C-alpha cells in the first residue's frame, strides 16, 4: 500500500476532537506469535517458529482469489509497536483498537485445544510487542469459542491488564451460534471483567458457515457481498432470543466490519418476529431492538452507499447510530476507509457533538480509554 502520509484529511475533521479507530488491524503471521505458545505444544512444535511449511499454517484457509491475494492491492505488514504508531500517525487517529488478522480464522480450527493455545500465544505476543495504552494502542485479547472454559480463564488472566480493552471472539462460522449456553462462561467472565465482547467475521469463513453455497460462488465479491452481515444476523438472532442481554445485563457488544444498512432492518425484523411470538423468548422484558440500542455498538467500515450521503445518514438515524456507531478504518485491509470518509457522508446531517460521538467519544466509553 502506498504511503498514507501524503493524503491530508478534509478540513471538516478539525471539528473532531478525538479519533478512535475501532477496527484497526495488525497484519501479522503465525510465525510472529507461535513462539509464545505454552506447553505442551511448545514441546512438539519442532521448527514451527520458522516460516510455515507447505500446508504448515494451523489456520484453515479458504483459498480466496481476490485483489489482495493476487497482489493487486498490497496490504502492508503491521506487526510491531513502531509500525502501529507510524500508521496511526499517518491516518491521523488518536487511538487504535488493534485486532488480529490471522485470528479471524481462529474459530475455524478443528482442534479445540490447539485453537485455545494459539489464542493464548497471540495474546502473550501482543502484550509483549503491540499493546501500548499510554500511546493510544489498545488491544482486545482473542478467545477461542471452541473451548469456552479456557476462554473464561484467559479473560480472567487479562482482566486487569492496562491496554486490554475488550474480548475479541472471531465469529465467522461459529457453531452453534453465539447465543448458545455453551458460551456463557465467556460472557460471564467478560461481564465480570468489565470488558465488551467484540465480534468480527472474515468472508472466507463462509467455508464453514455456508459450506455448500461457498463452493458455488465463482467470484470473491459474490461471497464477500453477503458473508459479513449474514453472519452478524445469524449470531444476533441467537444472542437476542436466547436472552443473552438479560442474562448478562452489563455486558456490551461491538459488531465489526458488517456495514450498516442491514442493522436498522434487522432491529425491526427481530421486533417483527418477537411481537407475534414473544412466548418463544419470554425472558425478554423489552423489544429486541431496545436491547440492541442499549448494549450493542457497530463499527462503521466498510460504509456501503459511499456515493449516497443521504442513504448513509438516514440509515444511521434509523438505528440511532449517533449513539452507537463508532468509526473504524480496517486499515490495512483491502477495503479500508480513510478517516474522513465517514465525515464526508454524515457531516451535513449530524451536529458536531454527534460527529464527535461517532468518531471517538462513544468508543472512549465503550472501551474505557
Amino acid at each position, binding site marked *: *500500500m*502506498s*504511503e498514507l502520509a*501524503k*493524503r491530508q484529511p478534509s478540513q471538516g475533521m478539525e471539528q473532531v476532537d478525538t479519533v478512535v479507530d475501532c477496527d484497526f488491524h495488525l497484519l501479522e503471521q503465525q510465525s510472529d506469535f507461535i513462539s509464545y505458545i505454552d506447553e505442551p505444544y511448545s514441546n512438539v512444535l519442532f521448527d514451527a517458529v520458522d516460516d510455515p511449511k507447505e500446508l504448515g499454517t494451523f489456520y484453515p484457509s479458504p483459498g480466496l482469489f481476490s*485483489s489482495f491475494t493476487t497482489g*493487486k*492491492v*498490497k496490504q502492508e505488514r503491521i506487526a510491531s509497536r513502531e509500525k502501529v504508531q507510524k500508521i496511526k500517525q499517518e491516518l491521523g487517529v488518536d487511538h487504535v483498537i488493534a485486532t488480529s488478522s490471522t485470528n479471524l480464522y481462529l474459530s475455524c480450527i478443528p482442534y479445540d485445544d490447539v485453537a485455545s493455545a494459539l489464542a493464548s500465544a497471540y495474546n502473550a505476543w501482543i502484550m509483549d510487542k503491540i499493546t501500548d495504552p499510554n500511546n493510544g494502542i489498545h488491544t482486545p485479547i482473542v478467545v477461542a469459542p471452541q473451548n469456552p472454559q479456557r476462554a473464561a480463564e484467559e479473560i480472567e488472566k487479562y482482566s486487569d491488564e492496562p491496554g486490554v480493552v475488550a474480548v475479541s471472539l472471531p465469529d465467522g462460522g461459529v457453531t452453534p451460534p453465539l447465543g448458545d449456553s455453551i458460551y456463557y462462561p465467556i460472557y460471564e467472565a467478560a461481564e465480570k471483567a468489565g470488558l465488551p465482547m467484540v465480534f468480527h467475521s472474515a468472508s472466507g469463513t463462509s467455508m464453514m458457515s455456508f459450506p455448500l453455497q461457498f463452493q458455488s460462488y465463482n467470484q470473491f465479491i459474490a461471497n464477500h457481498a453477503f458473508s459479513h452481515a449474514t453472519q452478524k444476523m445469524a449470531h444476533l438472532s441467537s444472542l437476542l432470543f436466547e436472552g443473552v442481554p438479560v442474562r448478562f445485563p452489563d455486558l456490551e457488544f461491538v459488531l465489526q466490519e458488517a456495514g450498516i444498512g442491514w442493522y436498522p432492518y434487522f432491529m425491526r425484523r427481530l421486533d417483527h418476529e418477537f411481537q407475534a411470538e414473544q412466548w418463544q423468548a419470554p425472558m425478554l422484558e423489552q423489544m429486541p431492538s431496545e436491547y440492541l440500542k442499549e448494549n450493542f455498538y457497530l463499527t462503521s467500515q466498510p460504509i456501503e452507499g459511499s*456515493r449516497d450521503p443521504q442513504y448513509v445518514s438516514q440509515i444511521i438515524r434509523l438505528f440511532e447510530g449517533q449513539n452507537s456507531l463508532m468509526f473504524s478504518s480496517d486499515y490495512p485491509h*483491502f*477495503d*479500508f*476507509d*480513510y478517516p474522513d*470518509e465517514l465525515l464526508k457522508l454524515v457531516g451535513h446531517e449530524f451536529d458536531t457533538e454527534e460527529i464527535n460521538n461517532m468518531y471517538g467519544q462513544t468508543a472512549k466509553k465503550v472501551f474505557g480509554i
Partner: protein
Amino acid sequence: MTGDTAESNDGEVAIEGEDDLHFVTEIENLGSGERILVDIEEQEIGVFNVDGEIFALANWCAHQGGPICEGPTTGTFSSNEDFELVYSHEDQVVICPWHGWEFDIKTGDHLAPTRIRIPSYEVVLQEGKIYVKTR
C-alpha cells in the same frame, strides 16, 4: 506491469503568452509505458505515455483520495460474447494502490460503470517537449 518513473518535476511556465501551459519533460524522457509525477500549481498530476500517446491525470483517486497515478499500469478483464474472461487493454489501465480501483488512463474513467472519473488535463506537445494545460 511496466516500469514506472516516480520523479517529480516543478512544472515551469515555458511558453511565452501561454501561462496555463506547464512544462513536464522532454518527450524522449518518457518512454512508452512510463509515467512521471509533476507538481503544477499545488496539484499533483501524473503524466503517462500509453503506446506513444501522452495523457495527464490528477493524482487523487475519486474514491477516497488515494495516489491513483502511483499504482501499477495493467490491462483488465473484459467479457466476450461467450461470457469468458479475456485480458485486454494492456497498459491502458492504472490501478489505485489503496483499494485496487481501475481507471482508463486515456479518459480517467472508472472501469466499473459508476460514471466516476479522475480529472484529466490536456496535453500539448511542442518541439519535443510535453506540456500540461491547466485551464
